[in-house]
């Protein structure tokens, strides 16, 4: 094939390195970016009138952020860059995109999806009150709007991002009151051997935690969240939880950032027809890829956290690797040693991520004891009770059926935020494995699409 038409979705670390590798091979890929500037979520850039230095924004990762930004900027003119553009559907080798009130259908020979991740959340009584945010949202307000989510903030959940965001708030002059981590010291120890595959990362993490402690941020481990205090009108007033010793505790605060690590944003891969497999350690359904990022669909390649959560460094590696696999498949052989080196790097990242998964386990047991009045699907305001009734009374053995009967996951977010908790709850309700409760199927559009787009002349 002369010059294949290649579309990359995502301009974070994976998309950037993929584009770079394709440009180096003399191709001109189209890069679709939902953001206004490249960098993705982790290396999100500030608007032009904001002036915080990368060191203050990204901390230890400042050099990497600079490198990714500059790598992308150097591609200017050699790629077809589409910022602020949503890839909302894919079918029959066509990617459907939308920018403002214009839509377009891009035919491709190869599609490389580097769609990143979103927060992995677990419902909690009161989590729908104003003032309760996801960790990712708490970061976006800081980086894009120079705002904190509140003046007295508590971060809740588990995973490296929990500590990173807390540290970023500290650095921004808004020291959090507390970090409430559901993982226990014993979990951290269990994860250590695998995490030791990247000692520098491990050390960075330890520094974050000690930095928070020195600044007087209370760190609680092994907690069980009970409820967000407050009300729907005035918002968050506090958080109630059980500590590691079984003591009931309460912290008054006016904002909560919560998240339990991340989930792969895999909806586009799903729409492209990629096969998924269940990962028992992460308890997530993930698109299946080979060791270079080839999906089960011949011309669809996947890279970065949209495949599995391996972090920003692995995203760069996998983006480069997937682009090289793509080039190989299109008859432009790549140096084998270079690909092998990237594959080995990926293995290291995977070992480390397994360590992280053990050190900060997804506390799925919470879903078993959650009060039945808890709202699980925020868009549709569906409670645990309504979901369980769909399973118990209407005989829904898996989550798509439970969705059909209860409306869970039917709202604007399309189950991207409630889907994983719903799977756990469906599994509990029928005393079955979470694997058997399935995963919510993706349906276009990936994100809400304005109907008014059809009025733009010359499209559709």
């Amino acid at each position: 094939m002369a010059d294949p038409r290649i579309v990359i979705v995502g301009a974070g670390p994976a998309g950037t390195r993929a584009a770079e590798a394709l440009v180096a091979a003399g191709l001109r890929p189209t890069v679709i970016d939902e953001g206004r500037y490249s960098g993705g979520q982790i290396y999100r850039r500030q608007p032009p009138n904001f002036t915080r230095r990368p060191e203050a924004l990204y901390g230890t990762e400042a050099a990497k952020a600079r490198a990714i930004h500059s790598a992308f900027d150097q591609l200017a003119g050699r790629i077809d860059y589409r910022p602020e553009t949503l890839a909302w559907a894919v079918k029959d080798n066509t990617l459907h995109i939308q920018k403002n009130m214009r839509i377009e259908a891009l035919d491709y020979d190869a599609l490389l999806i580097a769609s990143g991740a979103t927060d992995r959340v677990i419902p909690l009584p009161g989590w729908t009150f104003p003032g309760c945010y996801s960790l990712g949202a708490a970061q976006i307000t800081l980086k894009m709007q120079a705002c904190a989510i509140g003046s007295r903030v508590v971060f809740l959940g588990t995973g490296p991002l929990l500590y990173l965001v807390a540290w970023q708030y500290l650095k921004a002059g808004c020291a959090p009151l507390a970090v409430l981590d559901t993982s226990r010291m014993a979990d951290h120890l269990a994860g250590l051997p695998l995490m030791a595959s990247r000692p520098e990362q491990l050390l960075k993490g330890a520094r974050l935690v000690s930095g928070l402690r020195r600044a007087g941020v209370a760190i609680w481990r092994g907690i069980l969240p009970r409820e967000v205090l407050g009300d729907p009108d005035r918002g968050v007033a506090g958080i109630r939880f059980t500590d590691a010793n079984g003591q009931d505790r309460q912290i008054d605060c006016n904002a909560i950032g919560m998240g339990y690590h991340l989930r792969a944003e895999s909806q586009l891969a799903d729409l492209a027809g990629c096969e998924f497999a269940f990962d028992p350690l992460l308890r997530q359904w993930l698109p299946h890829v080979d060791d270079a990022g080839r999906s089960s669909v011949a011309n669809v390649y996947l890279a970065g956290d949209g495949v599995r959560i391996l972090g920003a460094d692995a995203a760069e590696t996998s983006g480069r690797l997937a682009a090289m696999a793509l080039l190989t498949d299109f008859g432009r052989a790549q140096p084998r040693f270079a690909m092998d080196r990237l594959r080995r790097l990926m293995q290291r990242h995977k070992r480390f991520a397994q360590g992280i998964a053990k050190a900060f386990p997804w506390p799925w047991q919470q879903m078993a004891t959650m009060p039945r009045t808890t709202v699980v699907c925020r868009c549709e305001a569906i409670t645990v009770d309504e979901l369980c009734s769909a399973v118990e009374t209407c005989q829904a053995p898996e989550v798509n059926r439970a969705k059909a009967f209860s409306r869970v996951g039917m709202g604007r977010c399309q189950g991207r935020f409630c889907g994983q908790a719903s799977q756990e709850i469906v599994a509990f309700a029928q005393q079955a494995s979470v694997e058997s409760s399935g995963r919510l199927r993706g349906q276009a559009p990936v994100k809400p699409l304005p109907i008014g787009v059809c009025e733009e002349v010359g499209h559709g």
Partner: protein
Amino acid sequence: MAETRGAADIIIIGGGIVGCSAAFFLRRRNLSVILLERYLVGQQASGTNFGNVRRQGRHLTQLPLANRSRAIWAQIPSLTGSDVEFMPVGHVRFLWSEEQIAVVEDYARQASHYGLELHILSQREIRERFPFVGPEAVAGSWSPHDGHANPRLVAPAFARAAAKLGAAIHENCAASAIEKTGEDFIVTTPTGQFRAPLVLIASGAWGGGLAEQLAEPVPIEVAGPQMGVTEPAPYFIHPVVGVSTKIPGEVAYLRQIPRGNIIFGGVHRRPAALDERRAKYDPAGLMAQFRQILRLAPTLRHLRLIRTWSGVEGYIGDDRPIMGASEKTSGLYYAFGFCGYGFQLGPGVGDVMAELIATGKTETPIDEYHVNRFTLQPAARLQVSAAH
């Protein structure tokens, strides 16, 4: 030979709205029932359609069946113990051309002989009654006793009610072969065989393949409706809204549920595959759909689409379903191929088939749906089609 997993008076193949309601009504007539469903009940055309409980616009000769079904719709909560969100809020069709008014007036006159009440509304009247209507509409056709329901709930509700009455419902149990040996049919599935002297094929788009296996092939096209739903908005569109037109690309419809979401479909359908399990929505047609629904209610331009879907439907060549006893095999019955309009008919078809199977006859005319219209005198039919 594989062991027999179960035996009953009748095996129903297909767990859509027709198969499940037939199971229910057959149990009420004291026949023992086994229902075999390839996936989960109500998952294909029955669960993915628009949800229209519409009589206006049907072939006139289909109205007795539609009326019988409409009467059952009102009783579904008491029959099944489930709320299927049936709302008899009326059904309006807007007209885009003056010429179409005479067509609709003529239809209304004839439909009244079948007991269907239709009102032709002037341009002024539709603006008063339906302030959301687009400026192009010149008139409307109003059917006050039609409405809509939630398709995801209906077939499963009948299945649960049938099971409560003793029907054996087997999900994830596809019938791969049907044979008649002596008095009984043997139906083969991956998990074993089932035996019964009677079989009802109610497997929608899959019915074509089974009928062919039983030497009664019918022309069937497999297609998927193109459906979408918006984010919620204040509840302001109460009736089901459609179009009366001769131009296929203008056929669009929408309805709003009290929760606020607006469900829409129409304009085109796309080919679907039987082995894919799920028909996929084709995003390439979305803009054409958007334009047609904005003609119906322009203010929708301010809303966002949140989800699209499709399903697997069977369309018979002459746009009429296959219903009735087999021509060739005694004890075999068909009720499939409802051409994209089976949702409203479903409960009535189940009831009629139960009556026909249990008593040998039905008071509702269904002769024109007999499978023999494709299998009798093929030479004569070929001459007819060649003359056209």
